[in-house]
């Protein structure tokens, strides 16, 4: 009866409509949707409310006001700083993209020696905490740092002259942030190169086009949308970034929006939540606008990346002697992405007080900062807090996104809603989410304010979109029939999930957990908003030590922590290779 009407739909499609009719449902979907809503909606509402109200000085009464928004438009600061943000982000994105494309092209399209190691060091570099990474670059480019010393000896400048390169400037910010994004730009762009069907280029050659013509008319236009998408992504993430603006921009008096929000909340007494919230909403609006363009660019890029046919790997370009030059370029990248940042902090950590590289300084090497660091209760506590944060955030995020992704991939009733809701948090820049959650925690009766748990929950919200993408891809690889075979064998749905689905997607989930661990513990912007005085995590501790001028201790802690994180990122690299999942 039912089937008779659907069959008349014609052709081979009848079973699809029949399948759609039998949509499975589960109460768990609605529970998960409710949890996701509870994660996303309150922060947003509190942010909105805070931006429209003034609190009396004793903190008891609220009065409705538009002042914060009027301030936004009358005080030129907001637009000036938004423009600063844009300028800094555009510069960094361009910098990272150019370096990333060069690296990806050398690795994917030529026969340069050593090219197989670029993936490894790109992934390993993810282990360096953002604060530490920024600090080492400041040391490298600083007034008395090695870069300016070398440049001074070349230009023959006198000790009193201004430095060749002033790191505390927008240029310093662009270089540091740009180099920081280079590994990710490389990983994303090289996957663009590998996922584009080689026969597109071969068809051009067979049409009579020379190598140069093919590159200009086919390779570049085909890669353009994807490279553009990566550029927009880096632009957005830089726009949201906090570490470089706080460590380089603020002392250099180059202010961007994220630094403003931080200043209003953490460096103003009493905290100016109203203005911060208005700024935060403004920042969010800009980010949402850019995410729209990002979505359009990725859709266009995906159209170009349909892999069909036999997938011949294109023959790499034989470079001849030139390949030693390209190898030298790769070594240079390795230097700038790993060696320079690490050597600066390693050197500093062994010196009694900060001094530049010199042979004389070799006599004063000492391990006292390491001893001091490991005897400090504060440091030990923040190491443990960081581990709690990393493990807690990654496990929670993975477990939660796995279940959401399952319902979504298997098209349960309401599954699409889970997918949408779990992707929603990407509209919150970390610093904005920090302010918003702060408002939530201050206003709810549960004692979450200032706890490690509050940072974990914040991180889960922040990283669920990433977890979702990994889990989604993992479950997509499990064919429905594998589950159906289990059901036919008599297993109940729960049993099927735990005995068939889980084992098959475990590698993907492990990769995902490691990735989230890495990004959760290296970031500063969310913890600095949420951490209380007794619940510091390492990134925050490092930041305050640096502000206090305790440089060698900062470096000693940083070196130890980075060594540990590099092991984690190497495991991530190995597991990721095995499972075929890389960084997104």
């Amino acid at each position, binding site marked *: 009866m039912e089937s008779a009407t659907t069959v008349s739909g014609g052709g081979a499609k009848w079973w699809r409509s029949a399948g759609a009719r039998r949509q499975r449902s589960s109460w768990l979907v609605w529970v998960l949707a409710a949890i996701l809503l509870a994660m996303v909606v309150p922060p947003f509402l509190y942010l909105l409310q805070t931006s429209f109200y003034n609190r009396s000085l004793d903190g008891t009464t609220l009065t409705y006001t538009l002042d914060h928004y009027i301030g936004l438009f009358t005080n030129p600061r907001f637009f000036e700083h938004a423009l600063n943000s844009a300028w800094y982000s555009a510069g960094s994105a361009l910098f990272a993209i150019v370096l990333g494309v060069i690296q990806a092209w050398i690795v994917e399209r030529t026969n340069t020696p050593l090219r197989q190691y670029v993936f490894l060091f790109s992934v390993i570099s993810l282990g360096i905490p953002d604060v530490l990474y920024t600090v080492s670059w400041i040391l490298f480019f600083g007034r008395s740092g090695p870069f300016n010393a070398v440049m001074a000896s070349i230009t023959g400048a006198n000790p009193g002259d201004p430095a060749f390169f002033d790191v505390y400037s927008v240029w310093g910010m662009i270089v540091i942030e740009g180099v920081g994004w280079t590994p990710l730009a490389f990983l994303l762009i090289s996957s663009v190169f590998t996922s584009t069907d080689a026969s597109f280029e071969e068809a051009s*050659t*067979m049409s009579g086009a020379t190598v140069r013509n093919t590159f200009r008319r086919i390779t570049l236009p085909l890669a353009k949308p994807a490279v553009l998408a990566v550029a927009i992504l880096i632009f957005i993430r830089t726009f949201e970034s906090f570490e470089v603006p706080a460590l380089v921009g603020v002392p250099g008096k180059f202010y961007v929006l994220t630094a403003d929000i931080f200043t209003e909340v953490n460096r103003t007494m009493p905290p100016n939540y109203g203005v911060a919230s208005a700024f935060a909403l403004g920042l969010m609006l800009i980010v949402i606008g850019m995410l729209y363009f990002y979505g359009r660019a990725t859709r266009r890029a995906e159209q170009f990346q349909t892999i069909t046919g036999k997938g011949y790997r294109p023959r790499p370009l034989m470079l001849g002697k030139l390949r030693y030059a390209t190898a030298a370029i790769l070594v240079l990248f390795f230097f700038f992405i790993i060696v320079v940042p690490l050597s600066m902090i390693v050197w500093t950590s062994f010196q009694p007080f900060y001094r530049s590289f010199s042979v004389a300084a070799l006599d004063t090497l000492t391990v006292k900062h390491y001893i001091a660091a490991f005897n400090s209760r504060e440091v030990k506590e923040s190491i443990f807090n960081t581990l709690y944060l990393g493990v807690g955030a990654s496990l929670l995020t993975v477990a939660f996104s796995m279940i959401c992704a399952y319902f979504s991939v298997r098209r349960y009733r309401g599954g699409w809603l889970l997918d949408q809701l779990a992707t929603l948090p990407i509209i919150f820049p970390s610093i904005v989410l920090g302010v918003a959650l702060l408002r939530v925690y201050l206003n709810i009766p549960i004692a979450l304010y200032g706890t490690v748990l509050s940072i974990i929950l914040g991180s889960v919200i922040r990283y669920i979109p990433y977890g979702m993408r990994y889990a989604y891809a993992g479950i997509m690889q499990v064919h429905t029939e594998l589950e159906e075979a289990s059901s036919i064998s008599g297993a109940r749905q729960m049993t099927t999930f735990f005995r068939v689905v889980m084992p098959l997607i475990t590698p993907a989930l492990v990769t995902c957990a490691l990735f989230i661990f890495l990004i959760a513990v290296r970031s500063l912007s969310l913890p600095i908003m949420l951490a209380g005085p007794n619940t510091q995590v390492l990134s925050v501790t490092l930041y305050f030590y640096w502000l206090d001028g305790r440089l060698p201790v900062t470096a000693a802690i940083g070196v130890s922590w980075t060594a540990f994180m590099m092991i984690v990122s190497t495991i991530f690299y190995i597991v990721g290779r095995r499972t075929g999942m890389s960084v997104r």
Partner: protein
Amino acid sequence: MLKVENLWKQYVTEDGTPGGGVFGANFEVAEGELFTLLGPSGCGKTTTLRSIAGLEEPDRGRLALNRVDIFNSDKRVAVPSYDRDIGMVFQSYAIWPHMTVFENAAYPLKVSRNKRMSAGEIRAKVQAVLKTVGMEDYIDRPATQLSGGQQQRLALARALTREPKLLLLDEPLSNLDAQLREQMRAELLRLQRETGVTSIYVTHDQSEALALSDRIAVMNLGKIVQLGTPKEIYQRPTSEFVANFIGKTNLIHGNVHANVGVNASAKVSTPIGDLLAYFTAAIPAGARIGVVIRPENIDIQAAHAAPPAGMAAENRFEGVVEREVYLGEIEEYTVVVGKDVRVTVRTSPGKPIGVNDKVMVHFPPDRTIALIEE
């Protein structure tokens, strides 16, 4: 027209062990011919095609197009793909998604270095070519909005716009569904006949090869194992591999007692008795023989019926029907002949023969092929 001499290409896998490839292919393609390379996956047919295209560099050998070397390992000649003047249709079609239909088809004319054409000439030429493949109405459509069949037509048009000396087709129909495939097959044949372009076609589908080709080269394990017209290949296979790969076949083991020359008939002793068979290769006395015969070439009738007039007296055997399968346009019987030799017979349906009936089967001697056992 195209001459392939001793083409050799060995692939090496990532861990250093030798992979597939082509090991000494020799053949010639005549002007206007549709020549097919047929074989299972990994037999080297695509490698051969890509070597002709210049997308793969052979280890050694010689390729000549119109008596001019395009590749010669002895003389160190390797003309780059873009200077070979060869058109190619890819398995994935490789229609550039960032261009319209017109831009795709016009590309070879725009990038060509020796034939400069004005914009008007290009437009006219592209329109004409798109018309021959039935795509003239889609000329300004973005390539991303084309169906599989339309992409296929466009890929063909693009390969033909600059009127190449040679057209290469790499499994062009394998991504289409069954109905469309048959339609495109007919269209392909029509176009090839109309344009007269010399073509090399690669496929693993034997029915496609039989329907399209002037000549077929059957490949296996990197070597050409038989080369001939579709009829020769089908009716006179020279090896068990070819007999099995192209259509269903029966195989009966046996041996010969005397030397037999090529293209001669001789008796082969088998478990069911002596069989008069046709020899496609010279075979020495005492050799183990495989006799192959296609199911549709075997005559079958009820045992008590009188044999039709003119049927040769040889190769008649009694048997019992073990199984009967009705396949619509044909009926398939499994007949046990002698003690335990099973023979598959295909015939038009409607014969009054059923399971357990005694039957008489007859193997026509000129369709009963004797091969050296592999």
